[in-house]
């Protein structure tokens, strides 16, 4: 456990030693701020109309879910770029043997690297949560809903990075890993679109779709089925990564 944290903290700090982490934080923050502002703008224009409707959606309903939904899509694009280099680049730079010849198990290495990256992604989620909180200056928020949205986005990046880590273990070149991760995640994101066709519902596709589970939590209804989906998704890819990492030693 101590080794996992050692590797994780090194990984996390190394991200900030290059412009990589900073540029990610800056770009994502900028885009989300823009989307956030336009959402607030929408609210102020329709505020008068909303006042006339009974049980109208509040400030939180109008601003928060679209913001987090967009954040999910931005992270769908951005996470593969962060995960692609994790194992793959170390393999290419031949720095892996430092970890391989130290008294650490392969599971520790994978988990350490995974947690290190999750640190950055959770930081992005945290910064996203801070944005709606600024509305407290002049309004009121539904904290339960905000929490649910933060949780949904947190679960989402946890799953994204596990998939990305596995792709990084698989491929020999970072770009290949990024493309494969992006393809996989986008496919899982749009999977339930097909279920709208001709009124034919595919239960399996619906269950597999990340979007459905993400939106499920976003509504504020924290369903254990959705949480289990994300847990299984992440754990599955982590186990696959460890297995794949181990077989590296066998084949090469």
């Amino acid at each position, binding site marked *: 456990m101590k080794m996992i944290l050692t590797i994780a903290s090194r990984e996390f700090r190394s991200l900030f030693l290059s412009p990589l982490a900073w540029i990610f934080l800056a770009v994502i923050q900028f885009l989300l701020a823009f989307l956030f502002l336009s959402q607030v703008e929408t609210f102020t224009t329709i505020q008068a109309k909303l006042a006339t409707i009974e049980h109208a959606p509040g400030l939180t309903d109008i601003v928060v879910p679209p913001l987090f939904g967009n954040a999910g899509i931005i992270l769908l694009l951005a996470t593969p770029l962060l995960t692609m280099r994790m194992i793959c680049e170390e393999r290419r730079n031949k720095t892996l043997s430092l970890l*391989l010849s*130290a008294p650490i198990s392969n599971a520790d290495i994978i988990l350490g690297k995974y947690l290190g990256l999750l640190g950055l992604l959770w930081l992005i989620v945290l910064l996203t949560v801070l944005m709606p909180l600024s509305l407290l200056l002049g309004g009121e928020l539904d904290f339960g809903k905000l929490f649910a949205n933060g949780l949904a986005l947190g679960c989402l990046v946890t799953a994204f990075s596990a998939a990305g880590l596995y792709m990084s273990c698989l491929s020999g070149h970072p770009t290949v890993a990024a493309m494969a991760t992006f393809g996989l995640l986008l496919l899982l994101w749009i999977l339930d679109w097909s279920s709208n066709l001709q009124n034919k519902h595919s239960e399996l596709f619906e269950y597999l779709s990340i979007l459905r589970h993400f939106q499920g939590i976003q509504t504020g209804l924290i369903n254990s089925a959705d949480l289990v989906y994300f847990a299984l998704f992440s754990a599955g890819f982590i186990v696959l990564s460890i297995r794949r990492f181990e077989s590296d030693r066998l084949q090469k």
Partner: protein
Amino acid sequence: MLLAADHLFRYYGKHCAVNDVSFSVAKGQVLGFLGPNGAGKTSTMQMLAGNLAPSAGQIQINGVDLITNPKAAKINLGYLPDTPPLYKELTVYEFLSYCAQLHGIVKTAITAAVDKAIVRCGLNTVEKRLIGNLSKGFQQRVGIAQAIIHNPALIILDEPTVGLDPIQIREIRALIRELGQDHGVILSTHILSEVQESCSHVQIIHQGQLILHETIAGLNQQMQTGILLLTTAQVADKTALLHIPGVTLVESISPKQLKIHHVISDNASERIAEFVINAGWGLQEMVPIKQSIEDIFINLTQSEPADDL
């Protein structure tokens, strides 16, 4: 016994890179691992360091099996691969403290361990600099520092002096000799004189097989197979010389210069000298030629290729 490698095999697909290699290293030994490119040196070293799983065979480090109990075995192991595994974005000091942590050195002892490794490898002047900005020689030294920081019983160095200038090479050799006093060291190299200078044992691998395992002293003895360079005033009779007991081969360089191979045991050279004088060829010069380690290396690696191809 610090290291016992037992019948190691390694296949890449159908290609057999390491074929039935067994050897051992004890404390205080510096084992030089020689071989032409592609002979299986690096594969063997990667297996010893736990970076590559052998297809068959056993490796024990300090009595602990590396394959069934890798974590415990790797505590006693320091490894410098052919490309030093360095994180270029860290400073030397940061990098070495990270390595110390990875090797499970307790927090309170990390500073002392890092300082010691820095002094040993002569990194004092660059400890605050980024590894990526260092010269190749210093990077190599950081690589060595990384391998010895946790004071392992067994140190494996894959071509430690590649890319260093002659002064640095001398320093590294001195360091290796010093390490060899209370650790076991395995180093691979192409440079044969390096083996003669810094190793106590030598082993040569060729096409995946060990073809020589000797102490340096034994090797030195083997090198004096006895070759005499004979210069005479008159033309000497080669066949007559061959009849002298102890002479195995006579090669002529020029009509008046001969190379005589002889058995080293009894005093063949004395008999040769006597014979030449008695024959009246006018003995002018008789010089023993010492065979270099290069010759042995080339002889061993080139003599027996054809049969398994």
